[in-house]
């Protein structure tokens, strides 16, 4: 039985602004399920005395001094943008009419 439902995949797709077909929803539900199952195996070996880890490096407090470094020029910054206006990134309409 699948732990990840098609509805959940549809929800995630919507949050990620991905248009998925019905076939794709079913396909990814199966795949995501397999991924979750694999990750869940870690829980089987994790003992009480092993704290959860979110990072591969056993480090804390890695900071940089508050010093200004050179920025890009606007030309450089915008060179990869699909559309530019007034030295700003031009993006499609954010909200639909109904909002």
């Amino acid at each position: 039985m699948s732990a990840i439902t098609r509805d959940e995949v549809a929800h995630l797709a919507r949050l990620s602004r991905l248009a998925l077909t019905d076939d794709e929803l079913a396909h990814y539900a199966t795949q995501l399920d397999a991924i979750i199952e694999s990750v869940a195996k870690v829980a089987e070996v994790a003992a009480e005395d092993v704290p959860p880890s979110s990072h591969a490096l056993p480090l804390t407090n890695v900071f940089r001094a508050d010093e200004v470094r050179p920025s890009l020029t606007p030309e450089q910054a915008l060179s990869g943008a699909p559309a530019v206006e007034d030295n700003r990134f031009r993006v499609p309409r954010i909200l639909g009419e109904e909002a």
Partner: protein
Amino acid sequence: MTVDTHMPYDEALARFEPVLGLETHVELGTASKMFCGCKTTFGAPPNTQVCPTCLAFPGSLPTANAVAIESTIRIGLALNCSIAEWCRFARKNYFYPDMPKNYQISQYDEPLCFDGYLDVEVDGRTVRVEIERVHLEEDTGKSTHVGGATGRIQGADYSIVDYNRAGIPLVEIVTKPVEGTESLAPDVAKAYVTELRETLRSLGVSDVRMEEGSLRCDVNVSLMPRGASEWGTRTETKNVNSLRSVERAVRSEIERQAAILADGGRIIQETRHFHEDTGVTTPGRSKEEAQDYRYFPEPDLVPIAPDPAWVATLKEALPELPSVRRKRLQAEWGVSDLDMQAMHNADAFDLVEATVAAGAPAADARKWWMGELARRANESGVALAGLPITPAQIARVTELVASGALNDKLAREVLEGVLAGEGSPDEVVERRGLRIVNDEGELSAIVDQVIAGNADAADKVRSGKIAAAGALVGGVMKASRGKADAARARELILEKLGVSE
């Protein structure tokens, strides 16, 4: 845009109990951004303070700004918070073009500071506003919406984005729900933001300019019917860009929600937008579904573990906080609560304190700043501190008055001269010839002249109507252009007319 019905405030309060919550965002005044070395200068040309990291180019990695971490901890300490011994940044995922990464680096269930409070004075009583958390995140870029009728996001054809602000360190300060403020809710909200702003200013961590957006406030309001035990649904009002707006937004939201609830309607949990011009709120960007930011620990940054000894040092080194300072100044100056409030409202503490430090008696320093100078600041529409006169100059004027060289009228002229850019008080006295006439011979001559020119009044005084001497003193002051010592002139007048008091 439809205008909502509002219930009169008093009626709304009679039927419902308001619960407040405040979320304040503060841009820190660091030289560089939170996770990269770009400058943070306000008002720079678009996209001139951006780099691969704050633009989220592939392969770039963030590194946390040490000063931003320290400033956040200092804010937490000033707000009586506990400081986390270990915490992490988290990714807040959302698709919106104000963040080029499609996520914002923020903190989620492990804020750097938590469980504090800030006491505020409202209407003679102290209200303790409890602080839920203080966390560190990065600011977003600035979008401009093009097309459509109103320049707002709704109905715009497209938007253009400047990422200069994206990545500037941003501290979010969240209160716990504030209950029991009753009709004072709008005042408590305003007093809280005012006190918070002053606290942040005293820490020197931000320039806290609401009009430039370095201090921004979201106001949460809910109402529950009298006698109910469960809180109502809250709304979150954004775009509250001045202290006065904080007060107005709370009031307006109470009135609007009360009208809906009284009519049998229900409040929708939504983000609303405050309008400075009309003082009302309108629905903002609709949340298409329940917020689902899928937070997870930020893998590109390692945890923060502030050394408790270092935190203790930071706490030790905190500056005198505004509330403590106010109590000290009030005791030193010996003034009433009302006078303190007036000085507070006029933003005069620094000026009066500096004037006293420059040698003026507290009463005189306060008198000039809150009287003549407040009036002139008001006339020219500038803040008291914006007047072109220094506390040391005011102190010099009080010294000249105390020594008898000036009277109050002349002192006002000196101030006028200094404000007009005519130089220091001594220079103005010199150039305008404002010294009191101390020369007995000169004064005596003026008195003789005035008596001769006002025979009627002089006769009245001679016949014993001493009150008539006032007119003669006035004449002397006028003839000397205010430079005579009025008390001495009166003595001379009576002496010359052969009467005594």
